[in-house]
């Protein structure tokens, strides 16, 4: 049996007023990294925080990644407190197939997502 620990996920956080922008610098948000992703993001996010997840570098996401996003959504407290920015075509297709594109707030850009959450302009 494999005993490898979850690999660290490359995340960069930037506060923009009351909004925390977390850029996910991983090409794949999948079963290999989903547990670590959720753990690391949880450590960055205080209960009830306003969060933008910048997914513009994520070319592919699977159901494990989706589950991790749901975990972050729940941690943010309310559906209006988490926005996804820069979702790529494949990730959007997965969200559509699961109908979760109707659950997450999706924005083309980080600036648009931050503005929607009432944060500071860049």
């Amino acid at each position, binding site marked *: 049996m494999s005993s490898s620990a979850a690999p660290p996920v490359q995340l960069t956080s930037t506060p923009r007023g009351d909004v925390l922008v977390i850029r996910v610098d991983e090409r794949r948000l999948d079963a290999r990294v989903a547990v670590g992703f959720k753990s690391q993001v949880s450590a960055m996010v205080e209960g009830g925080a306003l969060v933008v997840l910048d997914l513009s570098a994520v070319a592919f996401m699977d*159901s494990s990644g989706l589950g991790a996003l749901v975990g972050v959504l729940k941690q943010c407290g309310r559906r209006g407190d988490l926005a996804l920015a820069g979702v790529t075509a494949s990730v959007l297709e997965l969200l559509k197939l699961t109908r979760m594109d109707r659950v997450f707030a999706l924005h083309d850009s980080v600036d648009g997502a931050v503005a929607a959450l009432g944060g500071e302009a860049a």
Partner: protein
Amino acid sequence: MATLLSTLHLPARLDTVAFAGALARHACEAVGLGDVATMRTEIAVVEACTNVVEHALRLDETCSYTATFEADGDALVVTIRDAGADGAPYAQAPSTDEPDPDALAEGSYGVPLIFAAAREVAFRREDGHNVLTLRFDG
């Protein structure tokens, strides 16, 4: 009659699942599937292989599984075969209810994704092996 494009033999490790996804994309191009069909194919193949690695073979990297890609007219047929525990989740198509925003699950999206992404899903147990066949077109 289907034409074999490629067969992958992969150890049961999560970091190798992406190889099956990448080959799925190339197989879609070979068959002439469009962008949306290609994305759906990669999604379904990755989900299916991840299920094999995590559930059927339980992350035992001494075990392996195969993914076979065949062109059948204008469709791509992907067959994933493993010798692990019985793959019961494919026996029945899952519910297609809208997600409840007030009661979201943090898991169990994988099998519904496969059924949503593939044109056809067929599963059988054969000689101690799980055999999952997915068909994609468009």
